[in-house]
Each structure stands twice: as structure tokens, then as C-alpha cells.
């Protein structure tokens, strides 16, 4: 289908609409960690739960990646299906466009989704298939949007993929629909993916303050609600690195003001709710938010008391990406946990500035990956706990370091006031577990000599 608006997209290196001082750096061969752009595009779009997501390429891109995110759905589950064109040798030689077309028809006929997202992969990008044309033709024929997502793995990092997915939304989805008449217009949540159901905690809070969610971009989203995102009154960017460009573009196109915020920690949560009410320009709402946040913070303070006592003075190394690098620092600070090391490899300059605002001078910045580097920081800074993503979880276990999973595979929701309480509990459980003592003491017959050298 035709891009609905043929606006100019900037040709910035990273595809970001907002120029960034530091475009995505080239990953270092032999030391690169993290996913590719294809991965990033999926992260952003897969939470559109009722759409079909078709990967156009050989099997591994889909086969190795489907069902790998902890993003939850309150209803439809089509996006949890793994769809792939599964190209074979002969498809590569003779071209996979026919197979793509047939696959789209098949999915549309059998599952009747409101839209189909089609992802290009390295191979189909390399062989020069005209995916956009196939999608356009298919959309015209079957009468539902078929959206090409041009984010093959080799164009760059995961973050770039997030942005390219954002571009696809801008180009093909946002602005193509109108809200139902009774819809109460309010805030778009951008870059909140409903990991472990965090979105639901946030929505509950917003509803208590009388703030409506217009479109969820994209945690637990339905395709239709994103088509009318341009009618929202405020955009909140929850994950800035990924989709800030989307918010900026929506500001210039539709005049929707935006702000960057987070829901990790009570203070950040309160700030975000206040910002929403302020930008909605609704005094009554602002008063409601004030009452709500005061009440919630007081209640939380009570409930946190026993945990704060146990957590005070504990030291943590935080290794995560983007917005979480600074927002989780705030949450930890509120619990009395000191962040002594923080990863910055996926952070923007703005993020780094925000980190600096929140931590002391003796915090070590870990600019790039390598599990060994994180462990070194934990040891040198005498940290009590490591907070990172699932990929580093078992690294910590091997070194017998208490660990909390903060990334997309996790099963615990840490957003909002409820989330902070949950985080406090998890930290306490983790630190207090008897395993640390058991694992550190040698077998009785090894007591004389250390059983192994380190």
C-alpha cells in the first residue's frame, strides 16, 4: 500500500527523525553484544497483539526469536504466533516474492487479522526483493493494511530497529484511523511494552487520576487504537532511546506535546502523572493527580518501611539499556540502594546526563559490554547485587552474585508504586536467600584446602 503521507523522512545515519549527536556506532566484531535491528523492530511492533507478524526470510530469524519476550496480552494472541516465509535454496535463487505474496494471502484468509506486519531480513534485503511493492499490492488486493518493516539485521543495532519500527508506524499506521466517538482522549504511552504486565499497573494509576490512554504504543495494543494516535492530547515517551523520534515527529505533524518520563520509582511516577495532567492543561485533573500521588506515596512509604531498613546501604551494579539506566537509579535510590556501577552502552547522551544527575561521583560508568567487565565492577566496587538482563543472569549465578532481571524476558512488573514495592521485595528476597552462604562454603572434605583456583 502507499505510504499514506509521502512526507520527507530524514536520511540521518540511524534513521532517527531527531538528529542525534552520537549516531549508532559500528558494533565491534568479536565483541559485539545485543540484538540486531530486526530484533529491535520486533520488540517495538510485536506487542500489537491482534496483528499478524510475518518474517520474510530463512527460518532462523523467526525460528530463534518468536515467543522470546515477556510482553503480555489482555486479549488477542495472534502476535504470539510465529509466522515465517521460511525461504529455501530455490526461493533464494528464484526469488521469494511469490512466496511472500502467498503467505500474506494465507494468513489473511485463515486468521483475518486487522493488519499484517511484514519484516525484511538480511537475506531478503540482500537479494533485493521489492517487499514494499508486494505489500502494497497485497494490501490493495485483500483490503487490510500490509505494512512493510524495512529493518533487516545488518543495518545496525537493536535501537535502530526500534526507530525504524517507529518510522513504519508513522508512515503507515498513525493517522489512518479515527477514534470511536465515545473515546475519551488523553495520553499516548510510547515505548512501554507491557513487560510482565507493567502497562496494566500504569493504566490503573492513570485511570484513578481520570487520565485516559488514547493509544498504547505498543504494549498490549490493538492495531486500531494506533491508527488514531494522532488524536491524543499528550505523548509520553517511556523509552526515549527507541521512539523519541516518533514523539518529535508527532509534535511537528499534529502539534501533540510530548515529554520523556518513567514509571520506575515513586518520584518518577508522580512526576510523570503530574506532567500528563499539566500538558493536558486541566487544573481539575492536576488536583486529582496531586491527591492520588500523595495518597499513594504515603501508603507506599508505610509498606516499604521494613524493606528500606534491610536495603539501606546496599550497593548495586546496574547494567541495562536506554531509559532504564537512569530511571531505575531513581527507584533504587528511593529504597536506599546505592548504584556503584552503571552500564551506558545503550544510553543516549541525554540518558547519560540524567544518570550523572542521579548518582555520585564514585559511580563507575561501564561504557561497553562484556560480562567480564561487569563482574570486575561488581568486585571492585564491592557491590551486593547485580541488576541486568536475562543474558547476564547466569553469568552472575556463576560468580555467585545476587541478581535481579530488569529486561524484557522477566516476569516481574516494577513500574509504578506497586512496582517499587515489588522491586523492594525482590531485592530483599534475593539478598537474603540462603543459597549465597551455602554456595560459598566448601564441602566438609575440602575445608583444609581450597577446592579450586580462581
Amino acid at each position, binding site marked *: 500500500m502507499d505510504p499514506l503521507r509521502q512526507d520527507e523522512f530524514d536520511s540521518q545515519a540511524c534513521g532517527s527523525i531527531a538528529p542525534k549527536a552520537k549516531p549508532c556506532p559500528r558494533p565491534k566484531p*568479536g*565483541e559485539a553484544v*545485543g540484538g540486531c535491528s530486526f530484533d529491535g523492530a520486533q520488540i517495538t511492533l510485536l506487542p500489537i497483539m491482534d496483528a499478524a507478524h*510475518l518474517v520474510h526470510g530463512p527460518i*532462523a530469524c523467526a525460528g*530463534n526469536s518468536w515467543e522470546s519476550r515477556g510482553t503480555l496480552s489482555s486479549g488477542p494472541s495472534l502476535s504470539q504466533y510465529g509466522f515465517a*516465509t521460511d525461504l529455501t535454496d530455490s526461493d533464494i535463487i528464484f526469488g521469494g516474492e511469490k512466496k511472500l505474496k502467498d503467505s500474506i494471502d494465507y494468513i489473511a484468509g485463515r486468521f483475518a487479522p486487522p493488519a499484517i506486519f511484514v519484516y525484511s531480513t538480511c537475506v531478503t534485503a540482500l537479494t533485493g526483493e521489492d517487499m514494499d511493492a508486494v505489500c502494497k499490492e497485497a494490501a490493495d488486493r485483500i483490503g487490510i493494511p500490509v505494512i512493510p518493516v524495512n529493518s533487516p*539485521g545488518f543495518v545496525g*543495532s537493536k535501537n535502530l530497529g526500534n526507530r525504524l519500527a517507529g518510522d513504519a508506524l508513522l508512515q503507515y499506521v498513525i493517522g489512518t484511523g479515527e477514534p470511536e466517538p465515545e473515546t475519551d482522549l488523553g495520553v499516548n504511552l510510547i515505548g512501554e511494552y507491557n513487560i510482565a504486565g507493567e502497562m496494566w499497573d500504569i493504566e490503573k494509576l492513570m485511570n484513578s487520576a481520570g487520565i485516559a490512554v488514547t493509544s498504547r504504543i505498543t504494549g498490549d495494543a490493538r492495531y486500531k487504537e494506533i491508527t488514531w494516535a494522532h488524536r491524543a492530547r499528550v505523548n509520553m515517551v517511556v523509552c526515549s532511546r527507541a521512539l523519541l523520534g516518533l514523539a518529535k515527529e508527532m509534535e511537528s505533524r499534529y502539534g501533540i506535546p510530548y515529554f520523556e518520563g518513567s514509571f520506575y520509582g515513586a518520584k518518577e511516577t508522580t512526576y510523570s502523572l503530574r506532567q500528563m495532567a499539566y500538558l493536558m492543561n486541566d487544573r481539575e485533573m492536576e488536583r486529582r493527580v496531586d491527591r492520588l500521588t500523595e495518597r499513594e506515596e504515603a501508603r507506599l512509604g508505610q509498606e516499604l518501611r521494613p524493606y528500606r531498613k534491610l536495603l539501606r546501604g546496599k550497593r548495586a551494579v546496574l547494567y541495562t539499556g536506554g531509559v532504564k539506566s537512569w530511571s531505575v537509579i531513581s527507584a533504587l535510590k528511593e529504597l536506599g540502594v546505592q548504584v556503584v556501577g552503571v552500564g551506558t552502552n545503550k544510553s543516549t547522551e541525554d540518558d547519560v546526563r540524567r544518570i550523572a544527575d542521579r548518582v555520585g561521583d564514585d559511580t563507575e560508568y561501564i561504557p561497553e559490554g562484556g560480562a567480564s567487565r561487569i563482574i570486575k565492577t561488581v568486585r571492585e566496587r564491592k557491590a551486593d547485587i547485580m541488576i541486568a538482563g536475562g*543474558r547476564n543472569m547466569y553469568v552472575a549465578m556463576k560468580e555467585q552474585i545476587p541478581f535481579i532481571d530488569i529486561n524484557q524476558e522477566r516476569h516481574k512488573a516494577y513500574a509504578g508504586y506497586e512496582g517499587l514495592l515489588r522491586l523492594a521485595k525482590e531485592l530483599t528476597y534475593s539478598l537474603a536467600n540462603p543459597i549465597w552462604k551455602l554456595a560459598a562454603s566448601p564441602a566438609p572434605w575440602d575445608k583444609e584446602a581450597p577446592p579450586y583456583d580462581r
Partner: protein
Amino acid sequence: MTVNRRKKPASVNPMKIGQSLGAVLALQGCYRAMPLIHGSQGCSAFPKALLTRHFREPIAVQTSALQEMDVIFDANRNLEEALNLVLSKHRPDIIGIIGTELTDVAGVDYQNMLKSYKRERNLRGGLAFSVVLPDFRGSLESGFSSTVEAMIDEMIQQVGHRGQRSVNARQITLLPGSFLTPADVMELKEIISSFGFEVIALPDISTSLSGHLLTGFSPLTRGGVPLDSMLQSLQSGLTIAVGGSMERPARRLHNAIGTPYKVFEGAMGLKATDELLHFLHQISGEPVPLRYCWQRENLLDGMLDAHFQFAGMSVVAALEPDHLHSVSGWLEELGVEQKALITSFETPLIAGMKREVWVGDLDDAEVLGKGADLWISNSHGIAGAQRTGAAFMPAGFPVWNELGAYMSVSVGYRGAMEWSNKAGNLFMQREAGSRESSVRHR
């Protein structure tokens, strides 16, 4: 008998996994190894995440991190850079360069590049090899066996061809297939060594992915067969391959240095285990150890106890080829109906099966296995099993909804008993569940 395919253009809920993941898995079974995937970042990030999730262990793997321009101009520059870094920083004993669909379609010749790299740097003392594994062919199983084959090739190259062999008749090289868990490999090693043989497993995930805290974290693999044992294995008097896919590496050893080999298509269930033990008894002249005689009795008694549960039940199984073949043999012994057997790609073993097999995906399992009481597949099958109302038994790769799946035993009498009990228990729970709901309705 027949291998079928359902006609549909797209793969829906794929069970097939890229070959390169199989290669990474194989290299985890070698000590101080580093698999290096020649492709874009995701080609290594996805397998790493998936293997980590299944084994609950850190996984050693690196990437040449190709970007668009690298592919167009000179992909091997990245590979060289990656090699330099990995070699200087980690000093691995073994390095496996794994080509992907990306390098394959782009026509990158990294094999010759590796050769000249080794010559120029005077790379000796370690094992460096490459293997071509685009994922538009085969699956995890073929990637695994091709990598073992490439590894063996390189070992033979290094040690030199026939003539220098001093055969050790009491030493056996075990080539365990990709469908075996670390605990399975451990069990096989134990069974074979209980007949008085030295066993060198190649690769040996039983000491690397079975979980241990001994050495802390390392960016390289922290267990598995060490390089000197690998080279030592060339002196073995016999190769035992488990799984049809491992026949090719076994044949390679035979052709190059003359090691005789015996292929066991599987080692699951009564008959398969009987066959293995009988063979070991014959070649060693040793009696079958008492504990296996005892385990055999345990198994038979257990199967008798369980047969009430299995009567009239039907099963759908979706697994990699060798695994499916094994599991189908075990199901045969339980006397359950095999409603549908689905696998990821066609192999000679599958083509030779007496039963009808479908090459396809988990969606095919849902359609063809409709009405089955038990569903056996990797964790991706949970939703499909729920939709069809079957009890779900995780098996194969990846399994993430169960702790310790990688330590479950399927081989030997012990394994058959463990699986029979597991399946029987699922039927019992299901029966109890349906009884409860029928009471409530009244």
C-alpha cells in the same frame, strides 16, 4: 514409510531452528572453545539468548557483526577483526567459524580466508575450523552434526592421516547426537565405561552444560572435552554414534583413519537399550553390570504399572528428526496411538521410518494431532497443546517452562522409566482434572 508435507506457503509457529544454533551447541561441548558466527549481530544474539534460556547457563559465542556495507565490500575484514580480538583477548583452544545464510547468499569465501589467516599468523596448537551452515537447509540437528564433522576433519588434518595411529582397543569415541541432554550424554558415558572402556565424548556437553560452579564465569566454554582428549580420540578402537545424524562424522573417522563404527539410531526405550548393552557386552566380553539388569527389571515393572494409564491414549509428537525417531520407538513400546509425528526436515532416518511422518511446524501438529491426549514438543508447543486440549510434555529444544529439563534422562532403562512415569503422571493428572469438572457439572 512416507514423508508428507502439508501444502501451505508460510511456516506457522515454526519448530525448525537455524543450523548455526546447532553449531554453537556442539562447540559448547568443547573446553575453552569459542563459536564465532559470521553474520549480523542477531545471528549470534538470538541463539545465545535461546540457548541461555534452555540450559540456564552462560553461552560462549561471538559474532563478526556484519553490517550492510561490510557485506557488500568485504565481510572477511570483520571476520579478521573478530578473530584478532577473540584470539588476543580470550586465547581459546578451539575456534569454530560458523557461516550463516547471510554470508552464503553474499558468497563470502571465509574458508580460504581462514586458511591464509592461519598460515600468516602461524596459528598452531589450537583448533580452528569453519563450517557452512545457512539456515535455508536443515535444522539444529544438521548444524550440530556438520560441525562435529568439520571439527573431526580439522583434527585429522592436524594430526595427519593414517599410519601414525596406535589403536587403543579399550578406548571408545562417543558421538552423541544433538537431541541428547547433558544428563543423557553423562548416562551414555557411564553405560559404556561400565564395560571397562575409556570413553571420549565428542562433543561432551555433559560436563559443560549440566551446571557447575567450579570455575566461575568465563567468556569461553567452561567445560566439555579438552583439545588433547579430542586429539586422543583419534586413537580409539571404535566409534559409537548415537542418532542417525551422527553417522556422517563417524564415517568420516572411518574413511580417514580407519576407525570402525557402530551407529545406534537412538538409545531410548527397552529395545534400544537392550541393543546397546548387548553390543557392549559382546565387544567387551564383560557381563552386563548388575545395576543395568536391575534397572531393566525396574523399567518393566514401571511399564506394567503405567500401562493402565496409557491404554487407549494417543500422542502427537513434534521433534527434530533423530529425536522423533527415538521417541516414536519408545511410544511403540507403550502401546499408545501415535496420532501424528511431525519433524523439522527430512533425513534418511526419517524417510526410512515405518510410520507416516510429516515435515512441518507446530501448527501442523495442532491440525494433524487434533484430539490427541498428549503433546510432546519444545516449549513453543504449549499454546497449541492448550488449544487442542492435550496434556503438554516438554521435550527437545528449547524448553523454558520447566526447571532442570536439560538434566532429564531419556536414554537407557533409567531414561525410559523417567519418560514413562512423566507421561503417565500427565495422563493421571488430566484424568483427575476431567473427573473434577464432571462432578461440578452435576
